[in-house]
């Protein structure tokens, strides 16, 4: 029973607005590790429970039949030792695949420290595998997750990546070769638990895509569940905007042809919270704008704030049939709110567009930062950001 759709299907959205597509469970929350930020750390006094492989398989099948879920996302605390944990997970997945003939999607977490033979067996049962990097530097890991090390995370990651490569050549040679992690591997990073900068995180992310061929890197804003002098205070709000900016940058890396070093550097190691990364890049590179819609290359169109992958594609298609003006852009569904400041159609800027400092920066800024007075913002945020004068200079000098 079952299949998997290529782009994935969201089956519901939880109250926090996140997509629910998989039954995301722990095999057990018993854990011998003592990561400071985790609620299931060994030293925490919390009720412990575990699924038997049979229970888990039945639950998954019954949810799947009712179309509640797209598949299973199986992770686990480390019970007894990494190898035992991995064996339990393999048992559950074997039941699902071989006894229940489940062909749906399975995402499994590789347990750090488990034997490579076990990781390989898991990989042959699952569609996707992931190992969480958790913290972006060796130093932070040593402080907060003493049982994990850079080595214990990157070694299995490298193993999976090599196996995927090997499997690809095998599949070409033998049609019936069993598929190893066909949906690739991913990882997750915690943002805001340690002082690591966005620059560090983004460079690491880029490296993971390039070196290990990861499908996705996920960012998770740190939400305090434990009190520890090494961690941010328990009442710290999760840095949601920062997480959002990282995801925006992640998209720029994967779909827009940007490189990490274009977005951030040592001097500006963190994202501007008020302006999205693409807009920020554009404002710092005003010499490349305005862009002529009727002539610009696909790569350049993708770099215009407000123009996305779909809009760029539509522009390319539509301009084969004649020149485009601002009215036709609207018909194509291109949102001009931000784009208008960076483009021309047949050499002209949009009719009636006034470039004044206040209105411009207001439009370019994200909604959540639109406060009644600009002065107020100066006091609220002390991170470096682009000043009103800078924007004015950029825009008036160029357009």
């Amino acid at each position, binding site marked *: 029973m079952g299949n998997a759709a290529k782009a994935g299907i969201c089956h519901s959205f939880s109250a926090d607005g996140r997509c629910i597509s998989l039954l995301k469970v722990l095999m057990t929350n018993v854990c011998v590790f003592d990561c400071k930020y985790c609620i299931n750390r060994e030293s925490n006094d919390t009720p412990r429970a575990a699924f038997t492989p049979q229970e888990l398989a039945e639950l998954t099948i019954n949810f799947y039949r009712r179309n509640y879920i797209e598949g299973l996302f199986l992770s686990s605390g480390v019970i007894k030792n990494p190898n035992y944990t991995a064996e339990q997970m393999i048992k559950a997945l074997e039941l699902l695949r071989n006894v229940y003939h489940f062909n749906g999607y399975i995402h499994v977490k590789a347990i750090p420290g488990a034997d490579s033979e076990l990781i390989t067996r898991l990989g042959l049962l699952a569609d996707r595998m992931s190992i969480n990097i958790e913290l972006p530097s060796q130093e932070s890991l040593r402080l907060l997750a003493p049982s994990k090390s850079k080595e214990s995370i990157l070694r299995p990651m490298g193993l999976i990546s090599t196996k995927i490569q090997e499997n690809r050549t095998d599949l070409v040679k033998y049609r019936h070769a069993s598929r190893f992690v066909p949906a690739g591997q991913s990882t997750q990073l915690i943002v805001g638990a340690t002082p690591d900068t966005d620059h560090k995180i983004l460079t690491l992310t880029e490296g993971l895509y390039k070196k290990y061929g990861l499908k996705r890197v996920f960012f998770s804003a740190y939400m305090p569940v434990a009190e520890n002098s090494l961690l941010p205070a328990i009442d710290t709000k999760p840095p*949601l905007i920062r997480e959002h900016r990282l995801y925006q940058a992640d998209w720029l890396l994967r779909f827009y042809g940007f490189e990490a070093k274009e977005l951030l550097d040592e001097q500006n190691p963190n994202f501007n919270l008020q302006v999205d990364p693409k807009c920020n890049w554009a404002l710092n590179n005003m010499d490349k704008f305005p862009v002529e819609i009727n002539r610009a290359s696909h790569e350049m169109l993708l770099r215009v704030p407000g123009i996305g992958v779909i809009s760029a594609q539509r522009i390319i298609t539509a301009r084969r*049939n004649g020149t485009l003006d601002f009215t036709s852009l609207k018909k194509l569904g291109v949102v001009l709110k931000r784009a208008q400041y960076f483009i021309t159609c047949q050499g002209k800027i949009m009719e009636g567009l006034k470039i004044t400092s206040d209105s411009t920066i207001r439009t370019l800024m994200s909604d959540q930062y639109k406060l009644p007075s600009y002065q107020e913002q100066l006091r609220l945020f002390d991170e470096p950001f682009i000043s009103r004068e800078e924007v004015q200079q950029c825009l008036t000098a160029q357009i």
Partner: protein
Amino acid sequence: MLDGTDLVYSYDGTFEGLMCCVFESYECKESPCLIRPPSVQQTIFDTSKWIETDSQKADRVYNSIPVKISSEAQELVKLGFLTCEENKELLILRFLRLGFKVGGKVMTMLTDEVVCSLQKAVRHLTSESHKFKGFIRFSVFGEALVAVIEPKNYVLPLLSAHFCDRYKVEKFMIYDKTHSVALIYQSNRAELIEVEGLTLPNVDSTEAKYRLLWKQFYNTIAIEGRTNPRCRMTLMPKRYWNQMTEFDNMSDLFQIQVQVAETKQAIPNDINKTADKTTRYQIQGS
């Protein structure tokens, strides 16, 4: 409107019928300002012209689309017919007239009013059907899976392949309340059948248990510190909530009886179709 007349076509509401309208429009060299399906009330000002459905004429028009325009255009027209766009018939006619004139290029004329509107309507259809792939909730009654949906567009033909592949060995039914049609799949055959009404039997304890477990999972997975109702509503508008287990208050569980009127349309890759006008379709109650 193309030539300023107030000519109105009426047709039988089928896709073949619409293709005949296109045929008629070419044969008589005329452009209607409205093409009316039987469900729309006639107004006193209409000078309505009845277009008889003739499968030969329909085939001629339909088969010429990939030759004269492109197969993508044929697909667009087919999908366009399933949308809830009010003037879909007229849009399709104008799209085809334009297409027959300029050829395959019509698919890239994204700034043209007609092409743009038709593609927008089709996007609405495909995105709705994609949403339903996730948001449909089945309940298990005996051996059969039953789901109810209330879509705006006629999405069942688009959902059929996905669910038939997913639940190959199951028996299932998806009932479209808006259009009073059900997709019924059993023993490797799928059919679209007109259904007048549907009442479901009481759920058994296993079904109730899994519903409860799902609700519990749904409520647990949300992180309190990140609550964002607006984001949830954008991604999953409230009109879908009615039929979703996680928002269900266990009120819609009654006896079930399905009145089957007639076979409406067979699924494309399905061979055998029967039109049994008075079958009563019984779902195994518990």
